[in-house]
């Protein structure tokens, strides 16, 4: 009896779901890339993930270009970037890839019916970004008055994202 109670108490602190609503666990999803390969968010656990929801409009392109500059400049080596494109992944080529995102650091997935974008992440308005720590907990998303999608400059959204990544993984240069 005492042993069970002790085991229970030991288990309590490692309950994974954080209580704070803004630090909730990112919902898992499975989507396909342009080659048709399926990707599951859970398989990216273990290092920070930056999750972008982009459609290819001018706001999205500007944010992707800023991110590409930092990726290629070696600032984002400790994170994986996942782009969830509003459409079939193969059509992201001319829109998102052309922004210069580093192919070896970026996974582009298609969300043709926007189910992951809307129903799981409630991110219908682009460009939207979520920073997930190594445990899959959401540490930042641009849903504040001054960094809201369509209103905030790309550099502000990217800068806040980078700050959240640095907090999640202080090794970021």
């Amino acid at each position, binding site marked *: 009896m005492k042993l069970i109670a002790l085991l229970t108490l030991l288990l309590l602190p490692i309950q994974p*779901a954080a209580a704070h609503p803004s630090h909730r666990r990112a919902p898992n999803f499975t989507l396909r890339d342009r080659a048709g390969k399926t990707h599951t968010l859970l398989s990216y656990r273990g290092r920070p993930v930056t999750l972008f929801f982009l459609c290819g409009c001018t706001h999205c392109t500007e944010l992707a270009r800023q991110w590409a500059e930092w990726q290629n*400049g*070696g600032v984002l080596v400790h994170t994986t970037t996942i782009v969830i494109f509003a459409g079939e992944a193969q059509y992201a080529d001319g829109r998102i890839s052309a*922004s*210069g995102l580093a192919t070896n650091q970026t996974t582009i997935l298609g969300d043709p019916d926007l189910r992951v974008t809307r129903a799981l992440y409630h991110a219908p308005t682009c460009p939207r970004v979520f920073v997930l720590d190594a445990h899959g907990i959401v540490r930042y998303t641009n849903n504040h008055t001054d960094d809201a999608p369509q209103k905030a400059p790309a550099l502000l959204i990217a800068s806040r994202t980078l700050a959240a990544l640095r907090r999640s993984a202080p090794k970021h240069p």
Partner: protein
Amino acid sequence: VCGWYSTRRPYGLIPLIVTVAICAGWCSPAATQNVPPQLTADVGLTIVASDRIEPATPNQAVYDFGKASLLDQTMVEQDFTIRNDSKSQLTVSRLQSSCGCTTAILRSSDGTSAVLAPGGQTGAHVTVNLAGLHAGPIHKLVEVYVEGNPLPAAILKIEGELTPAVTFSPSALSFGRVQAGAEHHLTLTTTLDSRLAGPRGRMPTLLSSDPSIRVRPIPAPAGASGPARTQAYEVTLAANAPLGFITGQLEFAASRDLSSVVSRALSGASAAVSAQISGDITVQPQVVAFGAVQQGHEASRQLILAGSPAVQLESIVITSESAQLSAKLEPMSPAHVGKLNVRLSAHAAAGLFRSQLALALPNGQRLLIPVSAYITR
């Protein structure tokens, strides 16, 4: 299990329940589910079908505009009729569009809200601005919210295909890792809608955003009778390009000779060009991203600079493009490695901050380090 457990250990049930609750928390739907929850709230809002609008469900409808070219139209517009089929009054409180290219207004007095009695209806006018969008399938949506419900009560979709006025092949050019001091060349092919050609079939001018990258049209061979709208270009990385990672965009130049329709069709078309140029010094990381900095606070970042054994670090001349930005090189061991401490002054003005540092070597090689920050109030 619980029956057995409560008989054998009458006070032991509590830890068992707690343990089960913990396990349930671990396997919570939010953590593992792949099936999305409900997309809309079924409150009785119905989108009225018409010859151009096909409701997939009573509260979700698609308008398919088919194929469109920016040379023919820059806007797609459609009216949707929304009816209250519930038995109580509903207030449409807002319309939320998925993209900055999409706007939606209600056909009501203020354009943003409407009170619908049972059986009452209102209209929503949706506009998608195609200018600035890349070619390919278009999926845009507008969510209709009613008071008292956090989920959208209806979804209006506009779908279709934007046909390309310009295509680049490849869509992005990479020189890869190259040595400084020599020119490098790549070929790019563009295909333009013939209506984009100017007087006497003249093609618009393709320009590079980076001065180290030049673009030159390749004349078609004499007697070639290929389609006039296809043009090949030689893209050249200059021998004196700065060291490090460089990136640019190839875009068609705006010109007074071009009509507004042609300018609009060309404005969203671009191809990215990149190169990693190696020389006698390297720096890591190759850019300085201060991130979000509060106004009035100083910020600093550190880079590691490494030179070839022949390079004297003291001989490197560092210049800053901005008075608010400074950098100091601190030698380390071994002698050809140093820390570059970059400092952003507390006096930097609020807003976007973009600048660069230039490191010049006696042999003429240059390393440019882009610097960015967003100074918040």
